[in-house]
Every structure is written in C-alpha cells, then in structure tokens.
C-alpha cells in the first residue's frame, strides 16, 4: 500500500467545486460541510442560517448527522459535503442511509485521496500503484440507486441542481485536487449557540 505523502490526484479544484454548490443552493436547503469543505465554504463568503459548519466534528459522522437532519425535516433538502478519509471512518453509514432512504438527502464525497489537513498522508484507499477504492461502487453495493461521478467542473456544474432536486438518497463522487499545505478549519463561533441558532432556523416552516 501507499507509504509516502506524494500521492497526487487529478481532479477539479476544491474551492470551485464548492462554489458550484454555493451558486445552486436553495434558500431552504441545509449544506453540511466538514474538514476541508468547511474551511473553504467559510472562506467563500457569509454563512447561511442553514449552513451547518461541522467544526468541531467527530470525524466520519457527517453522513449520519445529515441523515438525522433529513429524516427530521423531510421537506427540506440536506446536502452533506464529506471527504473520502471521513467516509472511510464510517462506511456503514452508507448502509444506514439506504436502509432509511430519505429522498431529501444528497451525500457528496470530495475525494482527494489524502488526509489533507494532517499533512497530506494518503488514505488506505490508495495503493502503491495509484489504484483507488471504488467509492461509487461501494455506494451502489450499499444500496444507493442514484450514484453520479464527476471529474470536471463543467459537468458538475451542469448537473448539480437537478441531482439535488431528484429523489434520493443520492451519492455524488467528485474527484478533487489536493490543496497543498492546507490547514484544518476553525469553528466560526462557539458551537453550542451555533447549534441552537441552526436548530431554530431548521425547524422553522
């Protein structure tokens, strides 16, 4: 298996891939970000009341948290932006999600192949020969009926809105370029008051 930190990944830039989501996001939709996606989402501009910046996090639990949100508020779309390293920590969540099958849940995996904020170490999903775990295949095997794969921004941008609107649960795999030297995200403010404010907005009609 891979042993160095020089794993490279061709793919779209993280910031631009998130900007696509930001541009198409509806006013009553939750966007849950974690790790690198949280860092860049905050850098892209003001936060929306239904942004859940999952910082601090329990690594791996973003899909499960999003599942609970989606089940509690079935009339509101919930979009979870997760990393590949995070997904590896909680692969069972794919099965839990398809068992519950919320139509309003979209799980996006931003796959850069590395643990970015700890220095760029390759995940165990990358082999020495560069071969990678087939995350879309895992999602299909776990029962996702809607699985979509994007390697370029133009295609992702063209499809994003329709995929979020479609009946889910939906699994989207984005190939992302690593961000060299990236740091971890910081909580935008104290977590408990943020949770309280988010819940108030999320529960509102």
């Amino acid at each position, binding site marked *: 298996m891979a042993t160095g930190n020089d794993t490279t990944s061709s793919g779209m830039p993280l910031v631009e891939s998130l900007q696509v989501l930001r541009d198409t996001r509806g006013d009553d939709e939750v966007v849950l970000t974690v790790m690198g996606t949280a860092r860049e989402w905050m850098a892209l501009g003001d936060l929306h009341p239904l942004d*859940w910046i999952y910082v601090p996090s*329990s690594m791996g*639990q973003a899909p499960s948290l999003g*599942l609970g949100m989606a*089940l*509690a*508020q079935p009339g509101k779309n919930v979009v979870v932006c997760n990393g590949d390293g995070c997904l590896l920590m909680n692969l069972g*969540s794919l099965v839990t999600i398809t068992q519950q099958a919320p139509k309003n849940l979209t799980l996006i995996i931003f796959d850069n192949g590395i643990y970015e904020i700890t220095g760029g170490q390759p995940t165990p999903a990358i082999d020495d020969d560069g071969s990678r775990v087939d995350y879309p295949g895992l999602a299909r095997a776990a029962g996702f009926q809607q699985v979509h794969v994007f390697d370029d921004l133009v295609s992702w941008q063209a499809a994003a809105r329709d995929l979020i609107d479609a009946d889910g649960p939906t699994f989207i795999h984005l190939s992302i370029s690593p961000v060299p030297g990236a740091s971890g995200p910081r909580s935008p403010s104290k*977590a408990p008051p943020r949770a309280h404010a988010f819940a108030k907005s999320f529960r509102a009609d």
Partner: protein
Amino acid sequence: MFTGPQIVSLLTELGITHVVTIPDSTLGQWEDDIRAAAAISYLGVCREGEAWAVAAGLYLGGARPLVMIQCTGLFESGDSLRNALFDYQLPLFAMIGYRSFLSQATLPGDTCLAFTEPVLDAWGLDWVLYDRPEDLPGQLEAIAGQYHRCQEAGVPGVALVAEGRA
C-alpha cells in the same frame, strides 16, 4: 428486565419519535414492539458512533430521538458522544443496556462490569442504574422522571438498564 410493550408505553409517554439503535440480546427483544408502534420510528444503525450523530441530526430538526445501545456500544462510540453531547451540548437521552449486571453471581468476569459505570462517570453524564426487576412499575416511572428532569435541565442523560438473569 422490561418487556417490549412496557418499553413502547414508556417511550410513547415520553414523546420519543425515533429509537436509534443497535440491538443486543436484551434490547433486541423489544424491537418488534418498537417497530409496530405508530408514533415511533425504529432506526437501526451499523455502529454505535452513528447513533449519537443520527440522534443529533434528528434533534436539530425538531425530533425527539432516543439512543438505545449496549454498554459495549457506549465504549465504541466515545468520540461521537463527545461531539454531540459536549461540543454542541445537545441534550440527547440514551437507554444503555448494562451487560451481565444481573448475572454477576452466576457468570462473573464480564469486564463490562468493571468499566461501564466508571466510563459514565468519566463522561460526567447524568446516569441512573435501573436494576430492580422486582419493581418494574417503579423503575419505568423513574426512567420517565429522569428523562423529564434531563430535558428540563437541557442536559443529556443515560438510563442504564441492567441486563442478564438474576
């Protein structure tokens, strides 16, 4: 210790909307009745860490979830528990099966007996042990009382339910 109908009656009285769970040989005996309850959704997860996160999402969306896991799952799910209950201070309530507690005389040596209560103390949780099968109505009322007390105080709580055969 409790029967499925007793648990469903309790959870219905408490207004629980979702039971987020992995069964063990005791909790699993309640599954059919929970699934049959009209006002309660049974939500099985694959690993206990998921349970706290799913319950957190449900709570944020206005639901009233209950985490139902064995004490071994408590050990497994520490980071997720830490995040939901302490980082975000969500007042989630859990019913945790205390493996072997009622079998200590006949089946000693289960290390769950050594670690469950110290771990709950270490987390600083409001936990109460329910270990008196001879007083079932009183035990159920006590769980309800603990739940209401925790909800009113806005803090998490754990009903530690003794398992095994006395």
